[in-house]
């Protein structure tokens, strides 16, 4: 579905991602784990079209069957192609209501009935949001904001959903809830690329996982393989 080849990302003088290549198959949950600053966010942001200084290639199998090269295209193009990113830190618009935040997520679409259907689906996924739909985004708790961020990213009806640190700052019980939901979303046929510092939670649900260190992939495997890996256990699972 997505093939990243020899991706390099530079921020000024910092080489954040170095010659990274990875493939994501349709229907799987792929995860990038690694320490803070390893280049996880930079990779995902490059795919989302937010990074200016990226080189290499990213090809994407679009829903109409063709394969397109998407690196360097603007975010609105990615959204139209069916790629959606729920950004790190949730980035809820605090002055807009829950419903307005969701409507914004559907900006690229014109089909009113489809939007209404997806909004209802989002409320089914997170019933708490429905109760708070007229409330301003800024008044929600951290967990509710994360739910809103995920629901909003789904409003563009993506084929590939990218999640940047969805567990950041959440209580353990909420982390579990969020990851259960991610599995549920994946079960509905969406491909997921998950970036996480919470390696344990991410590896548990991932089909394929990559460990990122200072901008390069150092280890790849299935989620359960990496959970068993001694180096991963030592470095990321506190084992």
């Amino acid at each position: 579905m997505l093939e990243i080849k020899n991706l390099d990302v530079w921020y000024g003088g910092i080489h954040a991602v170095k010659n990274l290549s990875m493939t994501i198959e349709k229907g799987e949950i792929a995860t990038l784990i690694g320490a803070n600053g390893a280049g996880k966010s930079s990779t995902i942001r490059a795919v989302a079209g937010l990074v200016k200084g990226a080189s290499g290639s990213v090809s994407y199998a679009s829903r109409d069957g063709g394969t397109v090269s998407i690196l360097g295209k603007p975010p609105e193009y990615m959204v139209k192609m069916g790629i959606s990113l729920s950004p790190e830190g949730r980035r809820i618009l605090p002055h807009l209501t829950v419903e307005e935040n969701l409507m914004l997520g559907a900006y690229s679409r014109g089909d009113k009935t489809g939007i209404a259907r997806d909004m209802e689906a989002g409320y089914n996924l997170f019933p708490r949001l429905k109760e708070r739909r007229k409330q301003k985004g800024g008044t929600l708790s951290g967990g509710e904001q994360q739910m809103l961020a995920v629901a909003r990213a789904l409003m563009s009806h993506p084929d590939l959903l990218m999640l940047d640190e969805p567990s950041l700052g959440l209580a353990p019980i909420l982390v579990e809830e969020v990851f259960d939901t991610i599995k549920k979303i994946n079960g509905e046929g969406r491909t997921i690329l998950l970036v996480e510092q919470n390696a344990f939670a991410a590896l548990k649900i991932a089909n394929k996982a990559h460990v990122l260190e200072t901008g390069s992939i150092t280890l790849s495997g299935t989620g359960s393989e990496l959970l068993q890996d001694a180096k991963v256990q030592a470095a990321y699972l506190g084992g």
Partner: protein
Amino acid sequence: MALNMFLQHLINAVGLGSLYGLIAIGYTMVYGILRLINFAHGDIFMLGAYFVFFATIRYKLPWALGVIIAVAGAILSGLLVDLIAYKPLRNAPRISALISAIGVSFFIENASMVAFTAKPQAVIQPKQLVEAFSVGGVRFVPLNIIVPVISFILVGMLLWMIYRTKQGLAMRSISHDIETTRLMGVSVNRIIALTFAIGSGLAAVAGIMWALRYPKVEPLMGFTPGFKAFIAAVFGGIGSIPGAMLGGLALGFIEIMSVAFFPTLSGYKDAFAFVLLVIILLVKPTGLMGEKLEDKI
């Protein structure tokens, strides 16, 4: 002061104030999205007035057509200003765009003096707009009623657009977080262009009504009203559209009433706005309806 006199001053104040308000909206919308004071905005107002002057007085086109041409011409000018003077500086420090704004303002003013000559030109008012009628001893000039009515209708339409359409939603979103708005699939440059188009269109309507009211056009006519409208935007709370209208009305009221009650102060009329600016900045820098100014990173 007799009541009918007061009423007439009040109508005058609302008329002038709503014109300041219409111009102020353009400042406040652009500031809300780009954190930029578009100094060329007063000059777009002037261009709108000139376009209608050329269309109707010089080329004898009907007024309705002239108004359409003037608004379209001003929108085009506003978009060009953004494209040439601001868009290349989108990622530059804010001060660069501000200096560019001052430069483009001077350019438009001086180019207009070359193109239109510096001499003020008389605008012949359509009769039906200026023939007074009286109701209960109060004389009404139709123009003075039409100006605020049109202004309020336009502001109402604008507020509807901001709060009820997805483009309006995108505008409210961009003003807080450009990157997240882009992630939602919004083409930010298109929304910015739309903002300039709306602001310029409203400025043109204000310019046309201004030209009818005073009845003349001149290349520097945008300078003082532009500055005052900017003050009105700050007074109302920069970034807030209702605030801009309220600030404009307040400024119109202060100017007209102070001269009405203290005729000897009429020479200082233009100074009131600036005194007001100093007072607001000292007492309540966020203005009447402004949000807390958080410095964006």
